[in-house]
């Protein structure tokens, strides 16, 4: 029974660890499907995390905190969009700038909040269901954002695969010149996709600072924004596989924590802490090896600057 309890505990914390990755990767998926590569996920997550935390502490409302995080992420993404879509700046360089800026901005805002306590985002305890053994904590004992993240996977898969706006979004990422020639507003569609991606990055940050570890620590994302970017490649731009990848990485993170706490493991904690990053590299290598598959699935205009000629 103890083993089962431990397994359930590991799985529950896996879900919690995966949720921010899922939000951020889904946001980036939409951005990249429209043909834009935003490397600023880490920065947007951090600013989302501190905005959400500061707002929740100040107002006492977690909902307002989440809203603030979403707006902050969207705001930074809008800045990115202005630079890359209207002023035609290089997307890689601008994304890096966004991350550097986000790291600085978040620690500047957050310097008064280090060590401030905050209540964890409440679980949606459902009568009876949440008390079920095993299934209760596994399926019905999470906070609202966990359910939102899973619902988003299905919503985005439906949007991209079954709706006309989703088709238009994919078309813009596939060939901006053709989309422009037919008469779609490439720039406007990309603005929307980038801002949506930023909003989800902000939400991912809020999940970290309000639910996962309800605290503000400088650089608390610890590379999760970059792992989310790798997850999009891992998923070959398919929402369902983003879910799979995020939960896989959540699992690696949690196993590493549990291993650190087990006396049986003689491996130093710093070596264990390398695991998620090494796993990211391994996964990238495995997926990227198949060049044809990447070429067939990656949006053909990913990262390319669009300026309608004449």
């Amino acid at each position: 029974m103890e083993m089962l309890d431990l397994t359930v505990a590991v799985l529950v914390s896996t879900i919690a660890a995966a949720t921010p990755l899922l939000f951020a990767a889904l946001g980036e998926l939409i951005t990249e499907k429209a043909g834009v590569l935003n490397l600023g996920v880490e920065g947007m997550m951090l600013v989302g995390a501190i905005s959400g935390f500061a707002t929740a502490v100040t107002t006492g409302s977690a909902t307002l905190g989440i809203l603030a995080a979403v707006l902050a992420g969207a705001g930074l993404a809008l800045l990115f969009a202005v630079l890359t879509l209207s002023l035609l700046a290089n997307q890689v360089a601008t994304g890096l700038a966004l991350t550097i800026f986000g790291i600085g901005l978040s620690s500047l805002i957050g310097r008064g909040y280090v060590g401030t306590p905050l209540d964890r985002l409440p679980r949606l305890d459902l009568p009876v269901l949440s008390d079920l053994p095993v299934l209760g904590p596994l399926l019905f004992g999470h906070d609202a954002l966990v359910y939102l993240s899973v619902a988003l996977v299905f919503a985005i898969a439906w949007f991209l695969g079954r709706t006309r706006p989703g088709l238009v979004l994919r078309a813009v990422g596939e060939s901006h010149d053709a989309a422009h020639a037919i008469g779609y507003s490439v720039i406007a569609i990309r603005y929307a996709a980038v801002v949506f991606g930023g909003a989800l990055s902000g939400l991912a940050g809020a999940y970290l600072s309000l639910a996962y570890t309800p605290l503000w620590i400088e650089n608390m994302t610890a590379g999760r924004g970059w792992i989310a970017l790798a997850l999009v490649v891992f998923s070959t731009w398919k929402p369902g596989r983003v879910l799979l990848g995020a939960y896989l990485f959540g699992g690696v993170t949690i196993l590493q924590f549990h291993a650190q706490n087990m006396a049986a493991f003689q491996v130093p904690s710093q070596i264990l802490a390398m695991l998620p990053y090494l796993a990211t590299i391994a996964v990238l290598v495995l997926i990227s090896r198949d060049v044809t598959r990447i070429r067939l699935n990656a949006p053909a205009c990913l990262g390319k600057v669009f300026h309608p000629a004449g």
Partner: protein
Amino acid sequence: MASQSTASGNGPPRLELRGITKAFPGCLANESVDLALRPGEIHALLGENGAGKSTLVKIVYGVLRADAGEVLWEGQPVSIGSPAEARRLGVGLVFQHFSLFESLTVAENVSLGIDHKEPLDLLSARIGEVSARYGLALDPQREVHTLSVGERQRVEIVRCLLQNPRLLIMDEPTSVLTPQEADKLFETLRRLASEGVTILYISHKLDEIRALCDRATVMRGGRVVGACDPRQETARSLAEMMIGGVLAEPKRAAGGKPGEPLLVVDHLSTTSDDPFGTDIRHVSFTVHAGEIFGIAGVAGNGQAELLAAMSGERLSPTDAAVRIGGEPVGHWGPSRRRNAGLAFVPEERMGHGSVPEMSLADNALLSGHGGQGLVKRGLIRLDLVRHAAETIIDTFRVVATGHHAEARSLSGGNLQKFIIGREILQQPKLLIAAAPTWGVDAGAAAAIHQALIDLAEQGVGVLIVSQDLDELFAICDRIAVLFHGRLSEPLATHDTDVERIGLLMGGLFDQPPDEAADQSGRTHADPA
């Protein structure tokens, strides 16, 4: 201007343009252009590259806005602000460069190009109907990257027809078709015209226009310079109207004997690593010294892959599959092949044959770094590089401000002259050129053709890969056809005609199963 701007016969013109003017920085693309199109006519818009045809089309289709002038639709002044508005009026456009999305299906592509929302399964059914009615066979579920170029054009046409256009604009539609496919397209267009659809047919191919069109408007330098009934004109008179001068034709001294084999391709097969690419299968041919050898074929039949295997950008599976001057070079990269006497002019002059953002001096170094002593112990000798660029500019009369000019600041024809000149001045034994005069004005094209002919007469082997049959017939000694990655037997130019090459371009040589079983993979072209 002739007084044809008002309607003739019954009712107002379907579309009338009055005084359309459009300027871009540094050039006036359209200058007070007048044009009137009647219901049910096939009207040719004729002009060289850069004459302003495409700009005019973009204005009519709402992609661009004119700086001045009026647009009247069936007698009513209209303002066309976007392609969607153009489609609502009843204007359909089949693009010159296809506006399709490779990874999406035919039905999804069509859906993106029409404005009313319609479930994909219903739309697929309607695609079936329209394509059956006009003889444009299409499978709505196929992904576009699996289609041939001709099929892609059908997608565009069907997409237009589904909106019941009353004006259909075709921008250089036959440049990607075999002559037979072009004939089928003409039947479809005549049928549409007989149903009352106006067709604006944009081309610089004079024979087609004479065969198809009722009226022609000729543009040059952004202005309308004439109007005529093309059926009353000769190809030559039309050409002179278009160019505004006398057409220079390249001169080929007759019947030099072919020299020793310079390029031998022997059962070359390659597998494309581009999922949208074509595999080369058992291709064999020989180019001799002093010969111009042409490879015809519709785009997408393996030209890019074959050229990459010739230039060394893509290595061959066996060393002996490609031999230059007897030396097996299949495993050599581009630089080593250059040292063996190969020069190469790629199809895409901007971004393949040259670096657009770099100066002409740097672009001279691009393919010249191996020879001519431009690089010594890893260090670039700037003075020699600049001098090499100036020599190219002077020898080939490239219009440019000097060796420091960026490649992208040159016009298409001048950049092409620079690239061909750069390759010729390396004094190659063998020159390979892809589409050497594509999109180049007639003056530059004639100069380029003459330079290639002169080169062959000095004993250089020349290989031309082109879709333009007129070009191939004008300068080549022998022509072979590439289809689905396979090459036909070469035919002597004086022994064959456009019709027969056209059949080969449609894949006829691939047909006889008994011959196709031949181990060598080479089949004879026809039974006659």
